[in-house]
C-alpha cells in the first residue's frame, strides 16, 4: 500500500516536471520559430472566432439566470436596485473567467488535443523533427501565445454579454429600471476587479491550452490504449484535467487576491 502510494506520488511529481518542461520548451522554442505570427493568427482564429458563438450563447444565458436569481434574492430584502452590482461582480470576479475557460476547453482545447494526437499517431510530429523543425515551436507555441490574448478578450466579451443578459431579465422582464441597473453596475465594479478578471483569464488560458497540448502531443505515451483509442483517451484526459485545473487555479488565485 505504502509502495503504491510512493509510486503514484513519484509519477505525479514526474508528470508535473514533464509538463513544466513541455510548456517551458514550447515558449523557449517560439523565439527561434520562423513565421510565428501567421500561426499565432491562425490559433487566434481557432480559439477566438470559432468559439465565439458558444461564448455568446453561454454568456447570455448566464446573465439571464443571474438576473432572475439575483432579483428574487434581492427583492426579499427590498434591494432590487443592487441587481446590477450583483450581476456585474459575479460575472467579473468569478463566473466570466471560469465559464469562458470551460467553454474554450470544451471547444478549442479538445480540438487541439485531438489534432495533436492524430498528428502524433500519423508521424507528422516526428516528420517535423526530422526536418529540423521544432515541433514545440511550430505546433504548441502559437497556441499558447494565442491563449494569452484570446482568453482575456473572450472573457471581456462574456462579461459584456452577461451584463446585457442580466439587464434583459432584470429590467425588461422584472421591472428594474434600466438606469438603476446600469448605474449599479458602474458603481460596483472597480479597477481591481477587472485586473483580477483578466489575470484569471490569462492564467486559465495558459494552463488549459498547455494541458490540452501536452496530452495530445503525448498521446503515444498513453498506457491504457493505442491508436485511435489513445487519441480519444488523451482528449478526454485533456478536457477533464483542464476543467479541474481551472477550478483549482480559480480558488488559488482568489485566495491570494481577496
Amino acid at each position: 500500500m505504502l509502495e503504491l502510494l510512493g509510486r503514484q506520488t513519484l509519477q505525479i511529481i514526474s508528470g508535473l516536471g514533464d509538463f513544466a518542461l513541455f510548456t517551458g520548451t514550447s515558449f523557449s522554442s517560439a523565439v527561434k520559430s520562423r513565421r510565428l505570427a501567421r500561426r499565432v493568427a491562425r490559433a487566434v482564429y481557432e480559439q477566438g472566432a470559432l468559439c465565439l458563438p458558444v461564448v455568446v450563447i453561454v454568456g447570455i444565458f448566464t446573465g439571464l439566470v443571474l438576473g432572475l436569481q439575483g432579483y428574487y434574492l434581492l427583492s426579499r430584502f427590498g434591494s432590487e436596485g443592487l441587481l446590477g452590482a450583483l450581476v456585474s461582480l459575479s460575472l467579473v470576479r468569478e463566473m466570466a473567467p471560469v465559464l469562458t475557460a470551460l467553454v474554450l476547453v470544451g471547444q478549442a482545447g479538445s480540438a487541439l488535443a485531438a489534432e495533436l494526437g492524430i498528428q502524433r499517431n500519423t508521424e507528422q510530429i516526428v516528420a517535423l523533427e526530422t526536418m529540423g523543425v521544432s515541433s514545440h515551436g511550430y505546433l504548441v507555441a502559437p497556441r499558447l501565445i494565442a491563449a494569452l490574448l484570446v482568453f482575456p478578450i473572450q472573457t471581456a466579451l462574456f462579461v459584456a454579454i452577461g451584463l446585457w443578459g442580466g439587464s434583459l431579465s432584470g429590467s425588461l422582464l422584472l421591472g428594474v429600471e434600466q438606469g438603476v441597473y446600469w448605474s449599479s453596475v458602474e458603481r460596483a465594479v472597480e479597477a481591481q476587479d477587472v485586473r483580477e478578471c483578466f489575470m484569471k483569464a490569462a492564467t486559465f488560458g495558459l494552463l488549459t491550452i498547455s494541458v490540452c497540448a501536452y496530452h495530445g502531443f503525448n498521446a503515444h505515451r498513453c498506457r491504457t490504449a493505442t491508436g485511435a483509442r489513445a487519441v480519444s483517451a488523451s482528449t478526454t484526459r485533456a478536457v477533464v484535467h483542464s476543467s479541474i485545473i481551472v477550478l483549482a487555479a480559480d480558488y488559488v488565485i482568489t485566495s491570494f487576491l481577496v
Partner: protein
Amino acid sequence: MGTVKQDLLLHVKDLHKRFDDHVVLAGVGLDVLRGSVFTVLGQSGAGKSVFLKCLTDVMQPDAGQISFDGRPLSFTDPVARAEFRRRCSFLFQSNALFDSLTALENVALPLEQTTDLTDNEIRRRSLEALRQLEIDDHSDRYPSQLSGGMQKRLALARAIVTRPELVFFDEPTAGLDPLRRNAVFAMIAKYQRQFSFTALIVTHDVVEALVASDRVALLDKGRICFEGTPAEFADSTDPVVCGFRDSADALGSSLAAIRRGENIQSDDT
C-alpha cells in the same frame, strides 16, 4: 582507398539498441558512399526501422558511432545534429504528410521553417519540386485528395525540396501491390539520378531493391550479416542470405505455379 574515404558520406559503427531485455541492434555497422543507393534488407521485426530511427536522430542508440561526412554525430552536440538534419531528409513509410495543409504547403513547410528564403522564392522552389515530381497540377489539393502514388511522390517532393545530400527511405513500398512497388523503386532510382542525392533504403522487398541499389546489406537478429553489391547478394552462399533470398524465390515460384493452375502446399502440411 583514399578515394573511398573521401566519398564516404555516412559511417555507422557498432550501433547497439535494446528495449528492456530485447536486443534490437547488436553492433550494426555500415558505410554509405556519396551518390549511391544503399539498401538495408531484413525481415519484419529484424530491427530495420529502429536502425533507421537511430540514424535519423529520432531515437537515441545505447552505444555506437555515427559519422556524417566525416563529422561524428552526438546527442550532446546540438550544432552537429542541426547540421545533419539540414542536410538530410526522411521519407516515412506512412508518408507523414500534413493532412491539414495542401500539397504546395506541405512541400513549402521545410523551406519556410528552416531557411530565410523569401515567400516568392519558397513558392517558386516548392512549385519546381512539385513539377519535377509531376504533381504540380494538384498543388492546391490536400493529401487525402491524392492517390497513393501521388502521395508518395508528394512526400518525396517534400523530402528533396531542401536539396538534401542524403535521403532515408523507411519501407517505401510497404502495403503496396507488386506493380506499385516496382513503380516506387523506379521513381526512387530516377530521382536519385536526377537530383544526385544519396539514398539509404530499408525494405524487405528483395527483387525491387536488388534492381535499384548499388549496395545491399542484410540485417538479421540485430546484426549486419551480409554487405555487398546486388550481384554478390544474388550469388552469396551464406545460409541467412540464402534463406532470405529463397523466401522471395519461393514467392515467385508459388506465383508461377498458381499461373500454371497447380495446387500450392505449405511446408507444414
